[in-house]
């Protein structure tokens, strides 16, 4: 009745993850139920958070009668805080050896924040709740990805992340729809949206707490499931000595190069909002369809998450990660092109969704395959933090360029720089060339 863990090969603990990864075709893919459950946890949690995110501006301005301008500041602060918390949570997950407990704390904090919405009145209450939710998200991401890594077959790591990201994005797409459906039925039914959101958050925490086993990030099986555990790489004593600041990972040759590459590419990843604005500006389609651009990107992301994960396992994760940025590059140029029209817009959304599908889960897979034993969550958190911070910088910088030289020129300039960065990354990252049948 309970999930079987027998699909994880015992050999994983004996060699560094991914260093000598077998070709995916040699090992039949079996989806670990843990990953399915973690995907479901993310799905219901995303329904919970995205339903509130989608209606929050309407609630704050239209219902509470407050200005939203200050939320811009809060959001910026939160993103920075979330990035820092993420590394701390990754470290705590590695240090304790119980990533599930840290992830549970993160999901739990977000759930508690949702309870606050039922009583929220003023701006500060809403800001505090949103901050709590964001920090919860920062805490849970890396330990959860560490759990996915230890649950996945190493040969199918990217594909496993793809399964998780697909489920995650189904939730992200469904959340706003549920929220707007509630408001369509009950125009001022914000409290109903908050109650529904809380219900999904509780389900997410319950599934994580009750169904997902407490696995060790270094490959140790959970206490409840240790009957089938194979040889382990590090004794608890060793693990304890391995805690370190994330910066020390820069000294790990593989991960350091990945962090540098991801940071470099992140610095040239301008916010989606800018791409949508360019598309809207050029095609001057009705502004009411603006939200559909987000939805379109999301659907492409969830559709391609598994196929691109499979591809990454087959030809190598680095080529797919780099390839995703080439798709982004193409998206920039297509958006900046003087010709417009529906197909060009759809093409941009496919490229953008493809970019996320080829980079989001694949980055986590890459980071975990390059991270030494016992530092798994910290390694994943470091990579995700580098990407988040570099993209924040990119958005700010691109804003300046946008105004200075105009949208299409700025887009082409960002594309040209991204092309240079892609070429640089091909030289920095080992294994950038696709694997052929024989390595």
């Amino acid at each position: 009745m309970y999930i079987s863990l027998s699909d994880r090969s015992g050999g994983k603990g004996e060699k560094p993850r991914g260093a000598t990864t077998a070709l995916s075709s040699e090992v039949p893919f079996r989806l670990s139920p843990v990953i399915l459950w973690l995907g479901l946890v993310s799905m219901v949690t995303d329904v919970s958070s995205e339903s509130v995110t989608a209606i929050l501006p309407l609630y704050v301005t239209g219902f509470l009668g407050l200005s939203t301008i200050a939320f811009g500041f809060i959001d910026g602060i939160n993103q920075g805080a979330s990035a820092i918390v993420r590394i701390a949570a990754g470290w705590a997950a590695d240090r304790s050896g119980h990533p599930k407990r840290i992830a549970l704390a993160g999901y739990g904090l977000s759930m508690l924040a949702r309870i606050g919405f039922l009583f929220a009145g003023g701006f500060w209450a809403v800001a505090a709740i949103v901050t709590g939710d964001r920090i919860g998200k920062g805490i849970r991401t890396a330990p959860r990805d560490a759990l996915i890594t230890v649950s996945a077959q190493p040969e199918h790591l990217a594909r496993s992340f793809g399964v998780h990201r697909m489920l995650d994005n189904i939730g992200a797409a469904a959340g706003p729809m549920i929220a707007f459906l509630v408001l369509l039925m009950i125009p001022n039914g914000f409290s109903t949206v908050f109650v529904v959101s809380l219900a999904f958050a509780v389900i997410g925490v319950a599934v994580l707490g009750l169904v997902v086993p407490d696995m060790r990030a270094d490959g140790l099986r959970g206490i409840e499931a240790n009957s089938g555990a194979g040889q382990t790489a590090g004794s608890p004593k060793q693990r304890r000595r391995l805690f370190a600041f994330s910066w020390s990972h820069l000294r790990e040759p593989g991960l350091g190069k990945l962090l540098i590459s991801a940071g470099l590419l992140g610095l040239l990843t301008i916010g989606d909002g800018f791409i949508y604005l360019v598309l809207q500006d050029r095609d001057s389609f009705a502004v009411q369809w603006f939200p559909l651009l987000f939805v379109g990107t999301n659907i492409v992301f969830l559709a391609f998450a598994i196929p691109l994960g499979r591809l990454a396992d087959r030809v190598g994760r680095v080529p797919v990660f780099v390839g995703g940025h080439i798709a982004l590059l193409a998206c920039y140029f297509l958006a900046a092109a003087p010709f417009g029209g529906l197909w060009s817009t759809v093409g941009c959304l496919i490229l953008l969704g493809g970019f996320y599908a080829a980079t989001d889960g694949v980055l986590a897979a890459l980071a975990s395959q390059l991270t030494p034993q016992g530092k798994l969550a910290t390694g994943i958190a470091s990579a995700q933090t580098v990407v988040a911070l570099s993209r924040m910088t990119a958005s700010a910088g691109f804003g300046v360029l946008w105004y200075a030289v105009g949208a299409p020129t700025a887009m082409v300039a960002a594309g040209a720089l991204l092309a240079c960065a892609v070429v640089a990354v091909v030289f920095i990252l080992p294994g950038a060339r696709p694997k052929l049948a024989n390595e």
Partner: protein
Amino acid sequence: MSATFTGGRLRWGILLAVTAVVLAAAGIYAVGAYQRFEESRTAAPSVGVTAGQPLPDVPFVLFRNTAGGQGYGNAATVPLSAPGGTRAVSEQPCDRVYGTGSTVICLKTNRGLVTAFEAAVLNRDWQQQRAWPVPGIPSRTRISADGSMIATTVFVTGHSYATAGFSTATEINFTAAGSEGSGNLEDFALIINGERLQATDRNIWGVTFAPGQSDVFYATAASAGRIWLVRGSLSAKTLTAVHDNVECPSISPDGTRIAYKKNDAGPLTAHWKVALLDLATGQETVLAEKRSVDDQIEWLDNQNVLYGLADQNVPGDSNIWKLATDPASQPSLFIPHAWSPSVVRE
């Protein structure tokens, strides 16, 4: 199979129970909320109303009706002589309204799976003449005195993927169909101390049209945490800073003074006082209202201003308050259960 997981059956039972309980609770809450909404929608209005009337003869006050019951959220009018009396409630739901004797601009939210926002021009029989989509949540709107120009400000909202955060979009459109509007005023040249500002993080909001001048308007401009009152020119496509820290300007009927909200706290802990600026002398007067006023102030006449304040105790309800321009004057309730006042004199 569950041998490796002590108490597995129990855990599954708990999970099923938790899921069933929270889904049922949310469902019951939603059904209850829907029933309460249906009741309030069909309930008799909580204030005296008449329905199906065209715009009354001037002078009158146009506003958004927030009294519970039928007609909640719809545009409504009261004669200026009896603001607290029976209101004529239209069939048009509007988040923000503004008008002249013959034209009403109505910013509204069209709910749906893709929630959209729209600006609609209505005639004096509340019939829609023109409409165009606006890119966010309605915030402010104004019509020039002759009814030819319409200014709209909306909040463009972020999304979890878009890190740009919150910003405003402000446009000036012509009432007559077919004429090209100003586009987003963010694209106008912003001139501070004689120099053109290059920064991109600019926001423009809260347009007010100068009476009797077809090209001149005032608005708020913000960049890098600084806020200015700007004088705009439609023909030159410029915004020129004329004063600091003036938000949501509203020019008096005689064109000599600007009423605005002045933040006397930090950018995050905003507390807006009602203030007046004498355009000729540059002298500022802060009025006695102690509550934070987050609205574009409206002039009742040259000596009194009006503004909306959300009701702290009833979510979704608000009241319109009146305050004399004398700094010693205290606010008084002008129209209860109302929002977005527009005083129509001619």
